């Protein structure tokens, strides 16, 4: 009954026509089931009642598409040929309405594509922090990939905020709606790698003659290894480094720090850079800024030969409460309370005010990404390796990479996408903003030659993976560490560092034991 073409009308459902008399609506409304045919992209919209088709047309009216009221080609017309009798039955309009509402609700209104497209879904966290030019760049990459793979459309799903990123992806995995490719932060990678959320990439690498794993930094690659399996190809990474404000150093007449400096050197430097006016309640300028974020301060344990967990990552006893860790935390606390060269959290302003960026602290331990902000602030900065206390240089490498999910619908295409995104050509443009060091050696080498970049690259061999890449509950342990530091600093000396570390070690071991 719906095959007969009654008054085929060629109408442009652009905004100008649509807002006026709506000729489509008129023709549709009178003659019942009239599918809309979009002659611009070849899609058929096989609606049932006139207003449904109209509603669909309205949804797509923004793009300036050409539409004709036409009959569906037979293969695209499941409703008209099968059990859709109730739609035409004028004596049972209520049924028609109910079913219609259901159809609209479910969103199954036959939007048929003449040429099926493959949609590759890619999840990342929003690039909002890095201004919109970065987002624009990402769009360029997507378009280049689509141009090289006809019939493929890449859908980037931005999930803002590190706090919600992993939870949302894990829920998508459980619910079976996981994207094909996900960007991962190494410091929360363990829960993904160890629970079958990601695919082993080795088979893809071995089958691909155009891909060489040697093109990437080895100790960055190794973070996502489990035995022979490899779960992530790095996009970019950063060791944590000591930034220093050259202007403040020059004003104080202090020489810039050099790699290989010790904690004692650091303390002397920090003292010289602290300005504590006579009679003031606190310093007006500090030697170093400190934020109670464990990923930032765990490095002080490492540069003293201490650690949070034993090498297998199974327990904290003997490590987090070991003498080297106690000494390291004591040193940090002393910097704030005894020497007063680092602001106590009480003294540093609440979230959002960074004393290094405001020129009130001369040093800060941060990663490559902060460079973008420092440059924007006009800070003349240098970077240097972290000071150590009688052990070899050590730092952490925080990185992000791309993984293929086990529930990916297009794994091979996902691999192609990852290969493209981590290629030197794309990487050179991607990290040009100063975001991080490219995981691709060729792209990283492209930016070498400046003192700052060379200082970063020189630290790569000393960089260790973060515990979060190996231990699933490490984000929780980091929360315990942050709370512990708060307990110590706000107890006013009542809680000794040793006792605090012993208590927290018990909590960490309890959390690890029940895993």
């Amino acid at each position, binding site marked *: 009954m719906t095959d007969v073409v009654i008054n085929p009308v060629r109408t442009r459902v652009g905004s100008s026509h649509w807002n006026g008399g709506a000729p489509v609506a008129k023709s549709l409304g009178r003659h019942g089931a009239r599918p809309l045919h979009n002659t611009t992209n070849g899609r058929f919209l096989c609606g049932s009642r006139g207003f449904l088709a109209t509603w669909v047309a309205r949804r797509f009216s923004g793009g300036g598409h050409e539409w004709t009221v036409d009959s569906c080609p037979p293969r695209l017309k499941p409703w008209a040929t099968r059990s859709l009798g109730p739609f035409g039955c004028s004596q049972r309009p209520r049924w028609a309405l*109910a079913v219609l509402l259901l159809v609209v609700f479910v969103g199954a209104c036959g939007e048929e594509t003449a040429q099926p497209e493959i949609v590759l879904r890619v999840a990342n966290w929003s690039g909002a922090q890095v201004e919109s030019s970065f987002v624009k760049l990402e769009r360029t990459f997507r378009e280049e990939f689509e141009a090289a793979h006809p019939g493929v459309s890449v859908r980037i799903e931005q999930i803002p905020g590190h*706090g919600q990123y*992993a*939870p949302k992806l*894990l829920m998508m*995995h*459980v619910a079976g709606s996981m994207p094909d490719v996900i960007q991962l932060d190494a410091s929360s990678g363990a*829960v993904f790698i160890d*629970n*079958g*959320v990601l695919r082993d990439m080795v088979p893809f690498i071995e089958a691909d003659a155009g891909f060489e794993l040697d093109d990437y930094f080895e100790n960055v690659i190794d973070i996502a290894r489990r035995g022979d399996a490899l779960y992530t190809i790095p996009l970019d990474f950063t060791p944590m480094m000591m930034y220093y404000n050259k202007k403040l150093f020059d004003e104080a007449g202090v020489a810039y720090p050099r790699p290989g400096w010790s904690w004692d050197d650091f303390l002397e430097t920090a003292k010289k850079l602290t300005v504590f006016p006579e009679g003031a*309640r606190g310093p007006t300028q500090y030697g170093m800024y400190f934020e109670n974020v464990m990923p930032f301060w765990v490095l002080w344990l490492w540069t003293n030969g201490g650690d949070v967990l034993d090498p297998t990552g199974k327990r904290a006893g003997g490590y987090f409460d070991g003498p080297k860790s106690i000494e390291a935390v004591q040193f940090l606390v002393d910097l704030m309370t005894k020497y007063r060269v680092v602001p106590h*959290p*009480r003294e540093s*302003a*609440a*979230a*959002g*005010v960074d004393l290094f960026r405001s020129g009130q602290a001369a040093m800060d331990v941060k990663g490559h990404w902060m460079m973008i902000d420092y440059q924007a602030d006009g800070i003349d900065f240098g970077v240097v390796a972290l000071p150590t206390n009688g052990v070899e240089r050590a730092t952490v490498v925080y990185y992000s990479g791309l993984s293929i999910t086990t529930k990916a619908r297009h794994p091979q295409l996902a691999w192609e996408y990852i290969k493209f995104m981590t290629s030197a050509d794309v990487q050179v443009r991607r990290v040009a903003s100063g975001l991080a060091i490219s995981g691709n050696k060729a792209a990283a080498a492209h930016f070498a030659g400046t003192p700052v970049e060379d200082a970063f690259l020189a630290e790569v061999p000393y960089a260790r993976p973060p515990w979060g890449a190996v231990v*699933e*509950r490490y*984000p*929780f342990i980091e*929360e315990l560490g*942050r*709370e512990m530091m*708060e*307990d110590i600093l*706000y107890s006013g000396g009542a809680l000794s560092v040793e006792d605090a570390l012993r208590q927290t070690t018990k909590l960490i071991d309890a*959390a690890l034991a*029940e895993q």
Partner: protein
Amino acid sequence: MMKDTREHNWRGYLFVAPATVYLALFAFLPMVLAGYMSLHRWHLLKDEHPFIGLGNYAKMFADPFFRNAIYNTFVYVVFSVPLGVVAALAVAMLVARPLRGVGVFRTLFFIPAVSSQVALSMVWIWILLPEVGLINGAMKWLGLDGSTNFLAEPGWAMAALVAMSLWIGLGPRMIIFLAGIQSIPEQLYEAAALDGCTGWQRFRHVTLPLLAPTTLFVVVTTTIAAFQLFTPVYVMTRGGPRRTTDVVLYHIYKEAWQKFDVGMASAMSYVLLAMILVVALVQFRIMRRGLSEAGAAA
């Protein structure tokens, strides 16, 4: 006749169907599932879920940090609910007057209710900043000490969250009170005026008793919302300083998303539900007695 009634019923079910399906799918079913999960050791991503009976419940009450979170939650409820209700009533009395431009004020007071809690939290972080924040800035301008970092002081952080809650929750409570106030017949006030009642006496003996049902509703809904405090804690304090703002819902979040122990998180959710139910029932009981006494007096 019979047929008509049946048809009415049939249509009635159709009308309530969307809400019923929605509630069943997105409220009742998850509640039942959470109850089931709370009796198991249930890792979000692992396949084995061994049954452990009330093990999760036993463990959480043995955990001093969870007991601390319950304590903090009650502290927040005890302060934010009465203050919030009184503030809303006071503002409702003010904007109930037929003044010119009063609509503007009603709108202004309601704006926080339609804003994102995350955005409001960011605004409050700024308000509470030391030295440069609104409060500390004003105190410095008055010649007082303006260096208190409210969100980093164990003694202040919870107070700051309570203060913020008064403002965020003000709009909806005010609107409900406003509706209650405006439904009080004018004759009662005229009679009271003839009896020589002062403004305060009119409020005390006419407005307040007649607002009792409204007050009950506002108190109960405010209490439920207060027990579910989460967003400002997550954005502003992360449970700190020294766990003074670690509340039950934030604890549940940490169990589920830092430890991936959704069994424990479900069990804690049930404990929170029980807390809310008990407190709400007590409130109903107390205030219903108050209602009947008011009725007897009138």
